[in-house]
C-alpha cells in the first residue's frame, strides 16, 4: 500500500476485523478530594452508607450482564469487587474514622482503600497489580457515588472506544452500546479486554502507546485489527481504500463460506485436513461455522489466564468435554498447559532467559500434581475417542517417557475411581525445539503423532527472539534453513510412519501454503478465520507443482530469493484472486 502514513499508529493486532467509526475517548475523571473538616458526622456516615448501597446496586447490574454475555465463570471476576462492598470490617473502619477524624467521607474512603492498594502494588505476585486495578474501580465508584455524580458509562452508540486501559467491567458495559472497536494504550493479547474482544468478535488494537494522547473525541478512525494499525482522521483516499476493502472482504467472505462443507483438495486430487487453533472456548461456534475438520491445537493455558489459577479436574473436564462433544466426530487435540516460570516465580526471581528456561514440559514435569490433574481431565474427556493429547517444548526422549509414566498412573487412578476414559487415547508431541526435530525418527517409536509449532521452531533454529524489536527482522519464516529443516522433518516422520501436522502461524500465512503442501504436510491447523482462505488456495493448487516449487526453494540461499520465487509462483497461477488473498493476509 503506497500512502502517506503520518496519521497511522501501530499497536498489537488483538482481534481481527476492519472498522471505520468515530472515536469515543473513555476517560475516567479523577475526582478531587478535599480533606476539610466536617460538622455533621451523622450525615456524613449516612451518605457513606448510601453510596456503598448504590455502588452495590450498580455492580450487581454489571455482574448480571456479565453472566449473560460471558457466562458465570468469567463473570466471577466481579465477585471479589462485590464482596469488598460487603466487607463489614472495612465499612466499620470507614465509619469510625469519619467519627474520629471528622473528615469528609470521600477523603476517608480514598485514604483507607489506597493503603490496601499500596500493599498490593508492592507485592511481587504477578496478578496483584490487576487486583489493585479492581480495587481502584471500587474506590472510585464509591467516591463518585458520594459526590452523586454519574459515571461516564453512558457512551455513544456505534463508536470506537479509545482508552488508556479497559477493565472487565468497562468491556461488559460497552457491549450495550454496540461498540465497533477498541483501542487502548496498554494491554496485550492475553489481557481480559483482549480475550473479551475476541469472544465478542469486536475488532481491537491494543498497546497503542499514544492512543489517548493523539486521538480526540469524534475523530474519524480506521481500525485495522488484522494488521494492528489505526488511522486518525484519514484522507478521503484512505477511507475509500478501506471502505472498498471492507466491502470486498465481505463479498469474498460470503463466497468463501460456501466452501464450508467442501473438502480441501488440490487440482491433482490430494486431500488435506484443515483444523482450527483454539484460544478461547467462545470461539467454538465460529470454528464450526468456518468448516474446520476438528481442532488441531487447544491452547489450554487460556483457562489459566482467564481464571488466574489452575482450574481443578472437574472444571477442566467440563471444558474439554464441551469441545469434544461439539466437534464430534472430528478430533480435538488438547495441548498441556504451555506456561513458563513467570507464572509462579516472584518477579525478583525472574529467569534471565525465560525462552530457554523453565517452560512447557519442563515446568509440567516439575509440577506433577498440576500436570496429572490435567491429564486426568483430558483422559476423561476422551471417552468418545475423538480427543488427542500432546505436550509442548519437548527436547528429549526422557521427557516423553516420564510423561507416559504419568499418563499410566492417571489411567490407574481413574480406573480405581471407576471413571471412564479411552485407554488408547493418542499421545503426541509438539516439535518446536531443534533437538526434537533432529530425533524425529526416535520419537516416532514412542508417540502417535507430531505437531510442528513453527513460531518457536523458527525462533530456536535461528536464535532470534521475535519479541525483541532490535532483532525481530532476523526472524525469517522463509529462511532457507527453515524450509530445509521442515523438509528433513517431514521425510523423517514418513520413515517411521507417524502423522505430522503443522500448527504455527506459518500454516496460516498465505504465502506459505504452496510450500507447506509441497513439503508433504497433509494436515494444517490455523486460526478459524483463515480456514476458508486456506481451502480456497489449496483447491487451486496442484501438489506436483508445489513439490517442484519446494525443490527449487531448497536450493536457494536467502529468504529474499525464496519469497520472490513464491510470489512468482502465485502470480503465474492466481491472476484472478491473488489480491484478495493477500490483502487480508494477517501479517
Amino acid at each position, binding site marked *: 500500500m503506497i500512502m502517506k502514513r503520518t496519521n497511522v499508529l501501530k499497536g498489537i493486532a488483538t482481534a481481527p476485523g476492519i472498522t471505520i467509526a468515530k472515536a469515543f475517548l473513555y476517560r475516567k475523571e479523577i475526582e478531587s478530594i478535599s480533606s476539610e473538616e466536617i460538622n455533621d458526622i451523622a450525615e456524613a456516615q449516612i451518605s457513606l452508607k448510601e453510596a456503598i448501597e448504590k455502588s452495590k446496586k450498580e455492580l450487581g447490574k454489571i455482574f448480571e450482564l456479565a453472566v449473560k454475555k460471558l457466562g458465570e465463570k468469567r463473570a466471577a471476576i466481579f*465477585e471479589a469487587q462485590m464482596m469488598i462492598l460487603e*466487607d463489614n*470490617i472495612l465499612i466499620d473502619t470507614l465509619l469510625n474514622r469519619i467519627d474520629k477524624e471528622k473528615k469528609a467521607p470521600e477523603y476517608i474512603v480514598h485514604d483507607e482503600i489506597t493503603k490496601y492498594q499500596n500493599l498490593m502494588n508492592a507485592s511481587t505476585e504477578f496478578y496483584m497489580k490487576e487486583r489493585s486495578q479492581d480495587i481502584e474501580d471500587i474506590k472510585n465508584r464509591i467516591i463518585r457515588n458520594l459526590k452523586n455524580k454519574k459515571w461516564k458509562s453512558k457512551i455513544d452508540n456505534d463508536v470506537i472506544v479509545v482508552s488508556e486501559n479497559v477493565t472487565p467491567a468497562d468491556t461488559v458495559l460497552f457491549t450495550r452500546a454496540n461498540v465497533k472497536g477498541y483501542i487502548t494504550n496498554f494491554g496485550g493479547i492475553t489481557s481480559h479486554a483482549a480475550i473479551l474482544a475476541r469472544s465478542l468478535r469486536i475488532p481491537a488494537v491494543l498497546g497503542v502507546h499514544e492512543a489517548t494522547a493523539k486521538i480526540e473525541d469524534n475523530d474519524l478512525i480506521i481500525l485495522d485489527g488484522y494488521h494492528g494499525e489505526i488511522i486518525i482522521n484519514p484522507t478521503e483516499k484512505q477511507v475509500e481504500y478501506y471502505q472498498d476493502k471492507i466491502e470486498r472482504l465481505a463479498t469474498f467472505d460470503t463466497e468463501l463460506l460456501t466452501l464450508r462443507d467442501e473438502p480441501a483438495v488440490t487440482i491433482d486430487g490430494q486431500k488435506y485436513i484443515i483444523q482450527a487453533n483454539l484460544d478461547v472456548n467462545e470461539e467454538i461456534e465460529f470454528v464450526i461455522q468456518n468448516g474446520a475438520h476438528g481442532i488441531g491445537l487447544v491452547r489450554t493455558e487460556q483457562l489459566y489466564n482467564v481464571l488466574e489459577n489452575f482450574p481443578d479436574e472437574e472444571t477442566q473436564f467440563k471444558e474439554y468435554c464441551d469441545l469434544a462433544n461439539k466437534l464430534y466426530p472430528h478430533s480435538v487435540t488438547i495441548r498441556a498447559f504451555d506456561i513458563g516460570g513467570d507464572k509462579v516465580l516472584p518477579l525478583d526471581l525472574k529467569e534471565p532467559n525465560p525462552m530457554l528456561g523453565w517452560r512447557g514440559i519442563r515446568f509440567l514435569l516439575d509440577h506433577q500434581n498440576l500436570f496429572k490433574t490435567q491429564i486426568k481431565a483430558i483422559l476423561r474427556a476422551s471417552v468418545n475417542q475423538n480427543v488427542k493429547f500432546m505436550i509442548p517444548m519437548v527436547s528429549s526422549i526422557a521427557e516423553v517417557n516420564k510423561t507416559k509414566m504419568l499418563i499410566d498412573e492417571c489411567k490407574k487412578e481413574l480406573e480405581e475411581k471407576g471413571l471412564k476414559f479411552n485407554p488408547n487415547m493418542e499421545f503426541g508431541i509438539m516439535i518446536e525445539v531443534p533437538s526434537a526435530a533432529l530425533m524425529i525418527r526416535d520419537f516416532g517409536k514412542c508417540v502417535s503423532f507430531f505437531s510442528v509449532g513453527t513460531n518457536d521452531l523458527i525462533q530456536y533454529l535461528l536464535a532470534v527472539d521475535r519479541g525483541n524489536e532490535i532483532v525481530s527482522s532476523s526472524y525469517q519464516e522463509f529462511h532457507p534453513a527453515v524450509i530445509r529443516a521442515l523438509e528433513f522433518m517431514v521425510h523423517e516422520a514418513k520413515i517411521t510412519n507417524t502423522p505430522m501436522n503443522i500448527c504455527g502461524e506459518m500454516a496460516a500465512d498465505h504465502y506459505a501454503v504452496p510450500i507447506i503442501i509441497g513439503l508433504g504436510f497433509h494436515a494444517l491447523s490455523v486460526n478459524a478465520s483463515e480456514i476458508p482462505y486456506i481451502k480456497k488456495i489449496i483447491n487451486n493448487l496442484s501438489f506436483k507443482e508445489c513439490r517442484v516449487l519446494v525443490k527449487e526453494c531448497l536450493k536457494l540461499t536467502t529468504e529474499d530469493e525464496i519469497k520472490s520465487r513464491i510470489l512468482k509462483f502465485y502470480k503465474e497461477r492466481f491472476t484472478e484472486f491473488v489480491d484478495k488473498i493477500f490483502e487480508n493476509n494477517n501479517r
Partner: protein
Amino acid sequence: MIEKNVKIINNAGLHTRPAATIVKIAAKYKSDFYINKDGLSINGKSIIGVMTLAAAKGSDLVLTFEGEDEHEIAEDILSYFNRGFDEL
C-alpha cells in the same frame, strides 16, 4: 489467645477464592481472628485485607484467635489451610 503457624501449600497460593472462603468461615464465629505475615497484621474477617496478603505457595503465616469460641474457629480455619484450600 491461640497462636498458630501455618504454611501455604497449594500451587496457586492464597488467591481470591480461598480469601473469600476464609472470610466466610471466620464470619461464623465470634472470636477475633488475625493473619500476620512479614510484620503485617490483617483482620481475617475482612476480604479486602485477606486479598491484600497475596501469600504465595511456601509463605509462612501466623494466625491468632481470641474470644469465647477461639478453639472452634482455630480448628476450622487451620483445617482449611492444611487442606491446601481444597486445591491439592
